[in-house]
């Protein structure tokens, strides 16, 4: 429930990219805004095979083949790019390439593809720090316990501009060539009867430009330097 995905930690205010996407999907499926009910679910509850207390979950879940064995995903509603955040004066504040990040102590939130990006793309000499929440990672960054945080680009924009004092957005990582681009998808219970309807709604929103418009409205799209 972080900005810029949700605003003020209140998904029901129809603000923030994911809040807005959820309402747009509901509208496409033929529900009015007042018929949408939000429930908060813990990460471990969302990913278990147990019955869910929601129809679909929207919370920056990246689609992977392993995960799709346990839950259903809709089509992707956002193409993810990973980015690196640090503070002024840190040893990676002036990094221009992935090689400059090799000796840094990097951190990421658990269960994110950002963590895989550190291990698979940056391959730092020190084991990355793994945090339960992005808030804990920000705290550790400000304490100097880690040199940088890897997270998705919109979150990185928000962190470096609003959350981290003297925050610096170092740059973004490009997708390794030959890999399917990473996407966030809506998460549903496996075998949910509405997966195909939800996917169709997401596809329609992408086709009619709604997703792009919402992204422009809520997610900072200013370019970040690409770390080669």
């Amino acid at each position, binding site marked *: 429930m972080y900005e810029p995905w949700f605003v003020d930690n209140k998904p029901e205010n129809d603000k923030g990219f994911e809040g807005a996407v959820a309402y747009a999907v509901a509208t496409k499926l033929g529900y009015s805004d007042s018929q949408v009910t939000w429930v908060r679910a813990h990460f471990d509850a969302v990913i278990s095979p147990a019955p869910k207390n929601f129809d679909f979950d929207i919370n920056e879940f990246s689609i992977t083949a392993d995960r799709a064995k346990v839950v259903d995903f809709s089509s992707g509603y956002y193409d993810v790019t990973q980015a690196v955040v640090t503070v002024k004066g840190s040893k990676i504040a002036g990094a221009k390439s992935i090689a400059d990040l090799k000796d840094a102590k990097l951190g990421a939130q658990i269960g994110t593809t950002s963590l895989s990006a550190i291990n698979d793309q940056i391959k730092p000499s020190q084991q990355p720090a793994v945090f339960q929440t992005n808030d804990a990672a920000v705290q*550790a960054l400000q304490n100097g316990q880690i040199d940088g945080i890897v997270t998705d680009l919109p979150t990185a924009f928000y962190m470096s501009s609003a959350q981290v004092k003297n925050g610096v957005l170092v740059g973004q990582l490009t997708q390794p060539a030959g890999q399917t681009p990473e996407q966030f998808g809506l998460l549903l219970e496996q075998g949910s009867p509405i997966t195909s309807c939800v996917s169709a709604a997401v596809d329609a929103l992408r086709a009619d430009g709604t997703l792009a418009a919402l992204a422009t409205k809520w997610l900072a799209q200013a370019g970040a330097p690409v770390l080669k």
Partner: protein
Amino acid sequence: MTGGGAVDPEPAAHSGEAAGPSATADAAGAPLAPTDPGAPPPPRDDDWTPSPIQVERLAYRRARTRRSVLIAAASSIVLIAVIVVGLISTPGWARFRETFFDLNYGWQVLPDVAKGFWLNIRLMVVCELVILALSMLIALARTLRGPVFFPLRALAAGYTDLFRGLPLILVLLILGFGMPSLRIAWLPSSALFWGCVALILTYSAYVAEVLRAGIESVHPSQRAAARSLGLSHGQTMRHVVVPQAVRRVLPPLLNDLVSLQKDTGLISILGVIYDAVLQAQIFTASTFNYTSYVVAGLLFVLLTIPMTRLTDWVSRRQGWTGAGSHL
């Protein structure tokens, strides 16, 4: 299952025969008739052969034992079968097995989880040594007599009140993120260090109370006797009170040790410690497969069971188990 269900067939029926030669070897305790003074002296042991009735009795007991074992085995098998069939026939069984008991996946994550578990073990040993020393000091401070020691007693009581009351997870967060944010140059900022400190502070409060209970359970006459023999307060505690106190509280001490072993995993909320639980969580979070949690759980149980048996064995060997508690 040692034939507890075997019962003598109508013991009273044998009492008339008891005056015969078989009576000397009958250990079953069937009531004996008064010995006939005119009867020949009992034959020597090596000449003894069981009477037909004793043979029948032994055969009967063996049959009852066999029957008990068979019934117990059958009922156990039926119970296990009911549980297994009940589980397998649930509608989500296939998914459940894939998500929680995926053998291949479990085998694949085992090396990393085991590596994390090794960190748990080292953490536990280091913390436990400091905790035992610190908590003993606290317990001794709390049991000091005399008005002059009031500040020490108050300090010890205040410490236990505070750290027994604070949830461990809050102590971890406050120390792990709070102390480094003070940016004191000579203090380590490592999350591992502060995680250990948090565990030590919290667990010392628990263990100190266990030790205090042990010390106070030693009868005052022991102390009085030691002092009247000329031992100082320190010598009395060292040679008389503490040795008795510690062996009395050994089981609860082990409780705290096992509990500490599991709580070493909590340090991972500070983010930098790759222990077994965090390793398992990383796997689960990336693949949504819970098998890695089951693997980590098994490792913890596998460590705890031998530890408990070892402590029991040591206590028995030392003759500390007054009530003779066994498995």
